[in-house]
């Protein structure tokens, strides 16, 4: 186990040390002490390592993650795991705005609640929120799965594309061109797998599925020329 104390060192040294790890590293377990809300902690990782951050983080923690597992033993500021490509990010507490924004892959788990714009513009990432999510979540979401074990705020899935949204509780309102969709067996399989990975005891059958009505995919032109 490698321990890095941000009270004694700086962000640049931390991130460059983590970036120096490659696929063959034998230093696979890292602990970061005293994050104290610092920004950009453990962003840009690209190695099969597990990083545990013992406390809450600021903006963009684990941003653009590849391969790594990042555990945040506190809450996360805006843009946690933004543009994640692969790997796994788990937040024990709550997540602020834009959690998992534009993510292309990997799994983001929020064990508390997530604020507004969770999964905005997501491009393949899977996100599981044990609690509730705020307004405008999955705005312009392109692909991937957003699983919400609690309630969703206003304008869920506004202008979304092919992303799937699963909500167990209530949805305050749906955004433009977002509608409830039929829950088919393949969707229950996806849910079952994601809930297991996220260590949630929710049952797939308790969820409703939402997605694009695809009415905004092309301009409505009366007589195009």
């Amino acid at each position, binding site marked *: 186990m490698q321990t890095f104390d941000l009270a004694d060192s700086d962000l*640049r040294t931390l991130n460059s040390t983590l970036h120096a790890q490659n696929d063959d590293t034998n230093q696979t377990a890292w602990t970061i002490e005293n994050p104290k809300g610092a920004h950009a902690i453990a962003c*840009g990782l690209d190695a099969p390592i597990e990083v545990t951050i013992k406390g809450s983080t600021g903006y963009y923690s684990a941003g653009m993650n590849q391969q790594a597992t990042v555990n945040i033993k506190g809450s996360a500021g*805006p843009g946690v795991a933004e543009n994640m490509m692969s790997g796994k990010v788990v937040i024990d507490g709550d997540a602020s705005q*834009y959690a998992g*924004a534009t993510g292309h892959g990997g799994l983001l788990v929020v064990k508390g609640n997530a604020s507004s714009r969770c999964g*905005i513009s997501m*491009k393949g990432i899977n996100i599981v929120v044990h609690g509730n999510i705020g307004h405008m979540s999955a705005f312009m979401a392109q692909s991937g799965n957003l699983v919400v074990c609690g309630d969703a705020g206003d304008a869920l899935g506004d202008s979304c594309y092919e992303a799937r949204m699963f909500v167990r509780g209530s949805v305050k309102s749906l955004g433009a061109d977002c509608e409830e969709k039929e829950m088919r067996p393949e969707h229950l399989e996806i849910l079952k797998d994601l809930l297991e990975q996220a260590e949630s005891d929710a049952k797939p059958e308790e969820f409703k599925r939402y997605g694009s009505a695809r009415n905004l995919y092309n301009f409505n032109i*009366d*007589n195009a020329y």
Partner: protein
Amino acid sequence: MSNENNGIPRTTPRQSYTFNQDVNSDIRRAAATGIYDIRGGGAKRKVPSFDDLLFMGASISRYPLEGYREKCDTSVTIGGLNASNPIELDTPVTIAGMSFGALSGPAKEALGRGASAAGTSTTTGDGGMTPEERGHSTKLVYQYLPSRYGMNPNDLRKADAIEIVVGQGAKPGGGGMLLGQKISDRVAAMRNLPKGIDQRSACRHPDWTGPDDLEIKILELREITGWKVPIYVKVAGARPYYDVTLAVKAGADAIVLDGMQGGTAATQDVFIEHVGQPTLAIIRPAVKALQDLGMHRKVQLILSGGIRSGADVAKAMALGADAVAIGTAALIALGDNDPKWESEYNKLGTTAGAYDDWQDGLDPAGITTQDPELMARFDPIEGGRRLHNYLSVMTLEAQTIARACGKNHLHNLEPEDLVALTMEAAAMAQVPLAGTDWWPGKGGSY
């Protein structure tokens, strides 16, 4: 038609200035389709421009340098403030961001070839980095856009600089469009979107709002790229004094400032023509902002929007820019709107020089298209050669003017070398109206 009616002279048929034929055709088009007009390019309206400025040249009090013989440096370094690997350019004329999707792969390759041969940089666009472009560009600026299409850390680390796009001169406050005709299998895969849809790019970044967030976003991008490459911030010509101030405050290494003549791949015509400011109007407030912060020449200013010639380059630099970027002019150099395709432009209901329906993907020149047959008309090697030539000519022209003004580096050109032909240009550029020592607003704040 007779000029008389029962012996009473007729008045000449009189077209309305307000409801002229252009306006009437817009109304008829709107009535027929129910959707606003979408097109490519920048503002076509006449605006005060660099054409309204003249260099005075040398005289008894200023002596010139010998043309072709005495050195007149054109090099520029961009991004030395924070980056360990700043961009070193042989010419201050760079290639602006244009997307793969809006342009074909071979067209992007040609931009890379031409720019590299000329010793300058080219820039990606909305849609990500293609191997053609990276492979043929010695210096590639990677745009970080609100859509984040194709955005990934691997490409980010391949870039020689990162350009965070906040706005574009053709559409300040607007996002992008790429209509279904151009969403081919490859474009759809790169953008992670269904094929054939009318794609909208977001107008705001998904994970930051405001200058305080931007500062943290820049920190994240620097951390991911190891503080190696410069980070530019591109803003439209909206509120240049404040936008430049805030971008510098957020930590930008360079500012790209884009006026309303700057092109877009596809946007509403009403947006292009009625939102934004002319390039001439935005440069002095931007330079003032840098000067007030003590950052002029430390944070580089790259001006774009309707730059066409070495004279434009020299004028931009005299007013305080460190470099310029060209987009539309580069496409014309590649062969866009070439009269040799006139019969095909006619079939599309237009004429060479006026063709701007780039969103339809039917470009006869094979540049703004994803159609394999049309793309095959365009030779990226020949296109690259033409662009290299054009960049060389622009550089030579700018040097010619600088030498005439007695400057041994383009950066030594200054506002005192210029006069204006019109009151508007004098006010915007803050140089004297020709024949006077005065400009409107002289002595004011800016």
